[in-house]
């Protein structure tokens, strides 16, 4: 179908209409879920969107689009007016209507070929039930005319918002069109190229019949909106100035408002309870109305009601720009960045020679960066544009699957490059479908499992570490690692030997293997087994990473980590031998410099893998040269030449290869400790895992422009693209994930080793703690030192020797009203007796395990002096002589000290009911 209007105007209309439909769906869902409680604002938003679409469709004469949107608008009007409740069947009709409108917009020129009879019939059935006449039109009347304008309120508002003047232009078919050599089509084309034609009609009153009709020069009246001033508008329309009249906008606005108020008042007065057949109201005839529009046209402009081309409250104008223009700008910005890098590289050396060059370079540098960032910003889109389509998908799926599913969205405002947003649609849709189809249980199953019958799918986008994280979480049945493994074995994806060594996490990640599916039935929704590997592939194509966390019975989280943009990324330039590589900065965690002399302490082999001990963690290491098959070189300090490095590993101190005579002769200048053999390690992040890459040289961080790989090297895992450096050299961009895969890193092995070491350290700490004792130091005979653990002592008491009484061969002392047996160490151990000259002695009253501290103690040990109470860290050694209650000996405060176990001593003394000595 040929287009009267400029194609770009239609393209704008399609883009705006798509936006309207995107914004309509969440509101329709809200209407459905809230029913009659839904706010008027939500209904109005939907109404305005459909109304705008209808207006545009009418304007461009897309009949099918207009008819369907008109019917939807009529239904919405009933809902808005409270004459119809947004029941599910009504909402179904609106949803399918939206789908059909979308299908029409997909190929606007063939929109009339899209079948919509069923949808229209359903809507008409609703309307006929309510006695609505679909033929209602928006009426307007041009001053002094007998003929009504058919005005689209939204078009009028849109024109006014954009500061356009409204004109009534009269053109005569003969004088102004035919005699100017124009066809009516050419005339209208011209008019629409300089503004918007809101309506037009021909004054047919001047014509009586066929008899003399050809002599009549009929007037065509145009209601026309343009930014042009009147004289220029007339010139552009190729009409005399007097035939182009400006319509008074202020009067028009006031008229719109007044009519709206009147209409509202009339609605209020109108009884609502009678849904009988409604007569089409005649167009109201005002005294001298400029234009008359239906009530919603006069609703105060609200920001949320406006399309993408609207002006926001703050006055920030927006402008539709074609994506290919932005893409071109982006590419040019990329080339500019490259040129800037090359320029800086080329003239840096001349900065001192040319005054002011440094400042110029800095300025060019800064402006380039800002411009590039600005252009990147124009391509950023909120992830909500993808997220917002899922509630509708889930609504339909939940019906199809007889499940109750709620979708929660968080972080819809997070922005990503348009290309990434577009490429995320398929992976995210697949994940969401999987959640609804496989992950979430039926209401009965959920009830049985003690869960809420309504399953929840939570979509969350957030920034983290310069990347975008998107987490899709469900509270469904989770993924059973055993089932996955069984399926993987059955499909031959893993061998039994491999399976035996796999962790649960690794097993669960098998769902990303090509062709993997655990779905017991292949549904028409998902479960064809071609999905999750495509998800992973697509995400990795974007330079992202996908991870999966699951817990049986609790749910699953699929987490995508994505770069903000793909086009220009800051990257670290590294060197290996003569080669240069770029590593995207988002993957770089830190740099570690390991001195050659520290290699033995910091780098080791764990389970055959090279690891760096970094802050008490084991970091797997790969040598970039080895992974990429590049001959390693080292600088021979003796000759100053680069020579092949033949060591199998940097942890090797000599290497397996036989020493050459040259090496032997230079052994004294050992490169193992030479500073030139220091190691540069870049710690990279791949999802949750980190690993180190050993490179020869670190250069600088540069903003690189990503160029796609040629098809013949696209299969290489290690590279994600190529770029051009400032010196013109083409280098490869390393893919952190691919590199770790190529190096066959097994993070889980190292994690197990880390856990083992951690436990070892804990044990060691516990042992150390066991060696630490709080003791009481004392003497019995002068110079003979003893120690008793404080936790074995109940009390220490001072006594006078004169109070000791002898009964039989056992000594006692009156202690708290009772006789307390006394024990002398020299009677049980090979130690000297107490000095007989001492009048004042001390008693160590042992603590008996399990006995109350107020209970009568079994005995007291006589000592001569208490020396100290202190913490000591000792390893007890066996003493040469043995005796009861002797734990061992150790040197404390430079004196040999015997450590006693008082309870065992008392047992030996026959005072604890134990064995007598």
């Amino acid at each position, binding site marked *: 179908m040929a287009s*009267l209007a400029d194609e770009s105007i239609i393209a704008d209309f399609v883009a705006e209409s798509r936006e309207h439909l995107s914004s309509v769906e969440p509101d329709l869902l809200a209407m459905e879920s809230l029913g009659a409680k839904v706010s008027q604002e939500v209904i109005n938003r939907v109404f305005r969107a459909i109304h705008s679409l209808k207006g545009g469709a009418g304007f461009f004469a897309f009949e099918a689009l207009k008819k369907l949107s008109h019917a939807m608008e009529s239904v919405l009007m009933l809902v808005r007016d409270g004459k119809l409740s947004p029941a599910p069947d009504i909402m179904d009709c609106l949803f399918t209507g939206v789908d059909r409108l979308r299908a029409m917009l997909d190929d606007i020129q063939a929109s009339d070929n899209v079948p919509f009879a069923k949808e229209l019939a359903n809507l008409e059935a609703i309307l006929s039930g309510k006695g609505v006449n679909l033929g209602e039109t928006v009426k307007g009347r041009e001053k002094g005319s007998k003929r009504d304008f058919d005005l689209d309120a939204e078009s009028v508002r849109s024109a006014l918002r954009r500061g356009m003047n409204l004109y009534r232009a009269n053109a005569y078919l003969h004088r102004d069109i035919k005699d100017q050599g124009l066809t009516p089509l050419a005339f209208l084309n011209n008019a629409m190229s300089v503004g918007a034609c809101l309506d037009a009609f021909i004054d047919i009153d001047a014509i009586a019949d066929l008899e003399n009709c050809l002599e009549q020069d009929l007037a065509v009246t145009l209601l026309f909106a343009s930014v042009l001033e009147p004289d220029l508008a007339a010139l552009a329309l190729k009409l005399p100035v007097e035939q182009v009249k400006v319509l008074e906008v202020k009067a028009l606005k006031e008229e719109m408002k007044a009519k709206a108020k009147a209409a509202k008042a009339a609605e209020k007065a109108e009884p609502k309870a009678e849904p009988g057949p409604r007569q089409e109201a005649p167009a109201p005839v005002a005294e001298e109305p400029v234009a008359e529009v239906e009530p919603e046209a006069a609703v105060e402009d609200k920001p949320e009601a406006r399309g993408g081309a609207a002006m926001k409250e703050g006055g920030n104008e927006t402008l539709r720009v074609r994506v290919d223009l932005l893409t071109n700008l982006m590419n040019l910005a990329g080339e500019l960045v490259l040129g800037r890098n090359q320029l800086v590289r080329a003239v840096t050396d001349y900065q001192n020679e040319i005054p002011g060059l440094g400042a110029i370079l800095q300025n060019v540098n800064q402006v380039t960066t800002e411009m590039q960032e600005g252009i990147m910003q124009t391509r950023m889109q909120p992830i909500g544009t993808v997220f917002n389509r899922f509630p509708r998908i889930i609504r339909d799926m939940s019906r199809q699957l007889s499940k109750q599913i709620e979708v929660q969205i968080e972080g819809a405002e997070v922005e990503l490059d348009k290309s990434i947003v577009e490429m995320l649609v398929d992976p995210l849709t697949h994940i969401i479908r999987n959640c609804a189809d496989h992950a979430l249980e039926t209401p009965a199953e959920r009830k049985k499992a003690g869960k809420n019958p309504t399953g929840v799918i939570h979509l969350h986008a957030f920034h983290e570490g310069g990347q975008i994280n998107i987490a899709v979480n469900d509270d469904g049945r989770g993924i059973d690692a055993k089932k996955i493994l069984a399926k993987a074995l059955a499909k031959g994806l893993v061998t039994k030997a491999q399976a035996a060594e796999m962790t649960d996490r690794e097993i669960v990640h098998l769902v990303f293997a090509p062709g993997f599916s655990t779905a017991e039935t292949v549904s028409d929704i998902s479960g064809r087994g071609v999905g999750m590997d495509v998800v992973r592939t697509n995400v990795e194509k974007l330079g992202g990473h996908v991870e999966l966390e699951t817990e049986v019975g609790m749910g699953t989280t699929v987490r995508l980590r994505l770069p903000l943009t793909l086009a220009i990324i800051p990257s670290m330039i590294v060197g290996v031998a003569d080669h240069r590589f770029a590593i995207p900065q988002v993957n770089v965690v830190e740099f570690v410099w390991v001195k050659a002399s520290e290699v033995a302490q910091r780098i080791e082999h764990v389970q055959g893998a090279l690891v760096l001990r970094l802050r008490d963690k084991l970091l797997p290491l790969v040598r970039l040269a080895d992974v990429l098959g590049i001959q390693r070189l080292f600088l021979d300090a003796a000759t100053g030449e680069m020579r092949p490095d033949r060591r199998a590993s940097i942890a090797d101190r000599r290497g397996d290869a036989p020493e050459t005579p040259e090496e032997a002769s230079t052994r004294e200048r050992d490169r193992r400790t030479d500073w030139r053999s220091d190691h540069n390690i870049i710690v990279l992040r791949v999802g949750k895992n980190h690993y180190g890459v050993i490179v020869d040289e670190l250069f600088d961080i540069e903003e690189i422009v990503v160029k796609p790989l040629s098809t013949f090297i696209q299969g290489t895992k290690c590279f994600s693209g190529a770029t051009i450096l400032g010196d013109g050299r083409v280098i490869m961009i390393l893919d952190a994930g691919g590199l770790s895969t190529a190096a066959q890193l097994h993070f889980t092995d190292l994690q197990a080793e880390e856990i083992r070491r951690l436990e070892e350290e804990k044990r060691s700490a516990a042992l150390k703690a066991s060696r630490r004792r709080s003791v009481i130091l004392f003497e019995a005979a002068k110079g003979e030192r003893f120690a008793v653990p404080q936790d074995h002592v109940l009390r220490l008491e001072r006594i006078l020797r004169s109070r000791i009484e002898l009964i039989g061969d056992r000594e006692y002392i009156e202690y708290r009203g009772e006789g307390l047996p006394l024990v002398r160490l020299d009677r049980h151990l090979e130690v000297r007796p107490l000095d007989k000259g001492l009048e004042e002695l001390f008693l160590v009253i042992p603590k008996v395990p399990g006995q109350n501290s107020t209970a009568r103690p079994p005995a007291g040990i006589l000592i001569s002096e208490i020396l100290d109470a202190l913490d000591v860290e000792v390893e007890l050694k066996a003493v040469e002589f043995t005796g009861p209650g002797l734990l061992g000996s150790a040197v404390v405060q430079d004196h040999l000290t015997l450590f006693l176990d008082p309870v065992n001593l008392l047992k030996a003394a026959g005072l604890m009911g134990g064995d007598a000595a």
Partner: protein
Amino acid sequence: MASTQSDSSVLRIPSGGNLVASTVEERRKAAMDALEAPCTQAVLDLTDAEVVDSLGITLILGLFKTCQKRKVAFSVEGANADLMRVFKLFSLPKLFPIREK
């Protein structure tokens, strides 16, 4: 503008080509002749018309007014997409039914 009559009540009026300045007078006369025959409905068939200029539109409107006077229902058929656009933008479908080719 030769006329054919499919039945006693419907008068079909073929355009016989483009309705432009050079042809409208001839077509006007033919239409007038055709309308001499009694009918309740007149259909202008634009299947053969690629272009309709200002005079053509005037002719169609004259035809419409004549039919209106004689209480004969008037409609247009077989309009191509370009013609449909022009008719719609001039709001002619509000006066009489127009069906696209």
